[in-house]
């Protein structure tokens, strides 16, 4: 569903973070973009989510060039959860989730709240509805942020380092949770945590210095990395 052609991105200071990258992500429930720190994963994610514009190359979402898409329909098609999550601290969990549907879809508040509750229930965090972000744990916040993104029913969700704030146990819980999450949405998960990638994803790719080292089935990729 995502196809990338000859993508290159160079920061203003001359750092070339992505080097002539070509890949087609298969439609996969969870696809992992792996790589060590500084390999260009976040840069790639920012390109795919249109927050930065690559100097060269094209990105297609279901055969549409994303930079030619209308912003609103693009944002509705692709959700992003940043590493810092950026939950809105002045709103309850429920309000965090209803803001975009209310404003973008003009859904009335009551309906939006009902569907947000349904979503929270599906994600197993209904009890958090009236909590403020400062009152929930790191693992719960991660789920809320994903839930907030899922409210617009995007075709694709991009998660940047979802486990960076979690310890080993909650990481394992989270990888099971996201795996079992019933969703019409495909996930691209950016992570440097190979163990998490192995438990959560079925396919993936490994980046190094802005280039793809290996891609395919997760076990194959990881075997290749360990050998190399």
């Amino acid at each position, binding site marked *: 569903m995502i196809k990338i052609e000859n993508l290159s991105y160079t920061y203003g200071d001359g750092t070339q973070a992505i080097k002539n990258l070509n890949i087609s992500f298969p439609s996969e429930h969870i696809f992992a973009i792996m790589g060590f720190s500084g390999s260009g994963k976040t840069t790639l994610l920012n390109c795919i989510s249109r927050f930065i514009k690559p100097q060269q190359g094209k990105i297609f979402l279901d055969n549409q060039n994303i930079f030619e898409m209308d912003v609103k329909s693009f944002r509705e098609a692709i959700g992003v959860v940043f590493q810092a999550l950026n939950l809105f*601290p*002045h709103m309850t969990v429920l309000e965090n989730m209803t803001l*975009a549907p209310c404003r973008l879809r003009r859904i009335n508040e009551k309906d939006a709240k009902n569907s947000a509750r349904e979503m929270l229930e599906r994600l197993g965090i209904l009890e958090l509805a009236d909590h403020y972000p400062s009152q929930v744990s790191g693992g719960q916040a991660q789920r809320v942020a994903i839930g907030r993104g899922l409210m617009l029913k995007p075709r694709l969700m991009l998660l940047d380092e979802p486990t960076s704030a979690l310890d080993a146990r909650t990481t394992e819980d989270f990888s099971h949770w996201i795996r079992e999450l019933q969703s019409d949405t495909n996930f691209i998960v950016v992570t440097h945590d190979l163990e998490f990638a192995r438990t959560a994803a079925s396919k993936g790719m490994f980046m190094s210095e802005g280039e793809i080292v290996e891609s395919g089935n997760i076990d194959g990729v990881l075997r290749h990395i360990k050998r190399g």
Partner: protein
Amino acid sequence: MCFIMAMKRLKVPVLLMSMVCAITLSATSDEFVTALTGKFPPFNYYNEGGDLAGFDVDVSREIAKRLKKELRIVTTEWDGIIAGLLAGKYDAIVASMAITPERKQSVNFSEPYYRSGAQMFVHRDNPNHIYSIDECSGLRIAVVLGETYQQFLEKNYPDIEVVTLKSTVSIFEMMEQQRIAGFVTDRLVGLWQIKNAGRSFVPVGEMLYTESIGIPVRKDSNKLLKQINRSISDMKVDGTMDKIYQKYFGTVGVAEGESAVGGMTFSIIANKLLKGFAITLLIAFLAISLGFLFSIPTGLLLVYNSGFWALPSRIIRMFVDFIRGTPVLIQLLFVWLGLGLKAFPAAIITLGICAMCYMAEAVRAGLISVAPGQALAARALGLSSFDRFRFVIWPQAFRIALPSLMNNVVALIKDTALVSIISIPELIREAQSIISVTFEPHKYYLIAALMFFAVTFPLMKLSGRIERAIQAKGFKHD
């Protein structure tokens, strides 16, 4: 030791006194010779029996008594009265002579034995509720034709309708018919005329200007000057001056320039204070509302200072710094006198701009403390730029800015006191006008302070509570 010092202290003045007496006294040393014109009732004049009488005459008598000397009064023309003194024809002039720098060059003056000056009088019932000359705009105020008060009023109070009448008698008639709101004349002369005519007019407000009346002596009469000063101060302390004053000017006050209460009852005072405070609060409310409204775009402009907005941002930055770096008082005077705005709009605009600049800083601090990821996340959710600001950025920035915004509100309410300077009848000015009648500054300034505090204190408490509530919800200032 002690004994010797006491001896010395006694000896020196006694010795000096005898020397001075021997050398300088023109008249015989047991006479106190004074001069006056006898043409200035009620201060000095010839009464029906043809005898010299008046305030100055009584004061001269009392001083002579205290000097333990025989009083001899010389009458002379005003024109040559100082020359006569210098020529040694008399020891002192007790003739209601105002102390002026020019006169001081040739003679030495005693401490003032009374003060007078231009005073406004109204009817005791005070139908127009006038408590100071400032409240007479548009009213008819009378003066006697040819007296300097006419020019003084026309020059300093152009809003007053000055009515010139031939004499005090016609002024009194017009007052009784309520065809004029008040009149201006010399304070003491006015009091005496009112008393003589049996009218119920009272002085209100402070004197428009004052003159201090002293007793001139020759420059070499230091000893006499000291004795006269001592006598005057004794007369003030032991009530003699008061008694003489009452004799001529009625039971309305004492010689040092105090004034009658002018029928200012408690309800009038309360009404004035409340009205004044209402104006204070109205000005504060309008200025703060306006200021807050404009502080948001101003604060935004201070933060978003790149691209197209770089130049406007820089200009606003300069403007905000300028306003914050200059006294509000000067800004008020500039807008009022410099730009010639009417007092009320000048106050609202000046304080409003101040509020805008101070609050814009608070807004700016709030905006920059919102994590940049917040805007990014809102963008990722597809919110429009307006929605991002309205629902995500502004609520957070506002919460962070709120405590300092509240502090600004308190400071601005207090700053409203400054507009009294541009003659808006707000609380301070009303308090001053009450004080000019009641002479109780301690009381009314305290009341005014408490009225301010009654409003600012809850605001300060509220600000503290909001701050704690915000922190409890996980917001922090940094």
